[in-house]
């Protein structure tokens, strides 16, 4: 499991726009870099990030090797109701990780 950091407010007023910050530890190996033996290190990147709010997709990013290592993304969403935000990262070599964070909307 890669270390994932997710930052969003625990509580929000209904209809408020909240900012979500995410970061996951991943080398994002580009496939263009030579290793110790002089051969290219094969590509190993996260290709997609999805954030869904109570099952509904609210944000998605398609990443390429031009993303920096430990992909960092911040975005916003409207706090509609109390529920769960699910964050999923998928990538090369079968990489897949899902995290869930709850939010209370009052």
């Amino acid at each position, binding site marked *: 499991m890669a270390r994932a950091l997710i930052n969003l407010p625990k509580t929000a007023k209904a209809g408020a726009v909240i900012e979500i910050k995410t970061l996951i530890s991943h080398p994002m190996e*580009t496939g*263009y870099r*030579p*290793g110790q033996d002089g051969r290219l290190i094969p590509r190993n990147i996260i290709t997609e990030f999805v954030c869904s709010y109570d099952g509904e997709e609210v944000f998605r*990013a398609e990443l390429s090797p*031009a993303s*920096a290592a430990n992909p960092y993304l911040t*975005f916003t969403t*409207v706090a509609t109701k109390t529920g769960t935000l699910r964050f999923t990262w998928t990538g090369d070599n079968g990489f897949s990780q899902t995290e869930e964070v709850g939010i209370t909307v009052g």
Partner: protein
Amino acid sequence: MTIRATNGARLHRRTILAGGAGLLTVALVRPGAAAIIRPSREATVEAIRRFTGGATVQAGRIHLDMPPLVENGNTVPLAITVESPMSETDFVRRIAVFNDKNPQPHVVTLHLGPRAGRAAINTRIRLADSQTITAIAEMRDGTFWSATADAIVTLAACVEGS
């Protein structure tokens, strides 16, 4: 003083200096309307065409914030904002970012919707060389808007060994 070029032509020092001064002027006089899309290489143009489907791209409504001078191309902060009410009827569908010097032209594609509330995204990217970054936003009404930002990179990413 003359310098003998490989093809045997004699280049005068004054000519070379004048040429250098010309280049310098070009480098210093950057167009004020930096939002005009001007990707130089074919792969980037093709990637943009694939994203827009050949639609016209207008300058404006999108803002790119990137440091103009980058010491380490391995991690460059990039902030994108789009002027949009993000309502049910008028919102940003997609934002794509392209470069013109990395091995691949595509940087990131972001899918948004009315649930986003605001069109403001931050991320960190790699730059393999000093270059121009182009961001294009697709609105719900099918129009495309773009902005560009230039960065001078001291330490290149991607191709450096470990």
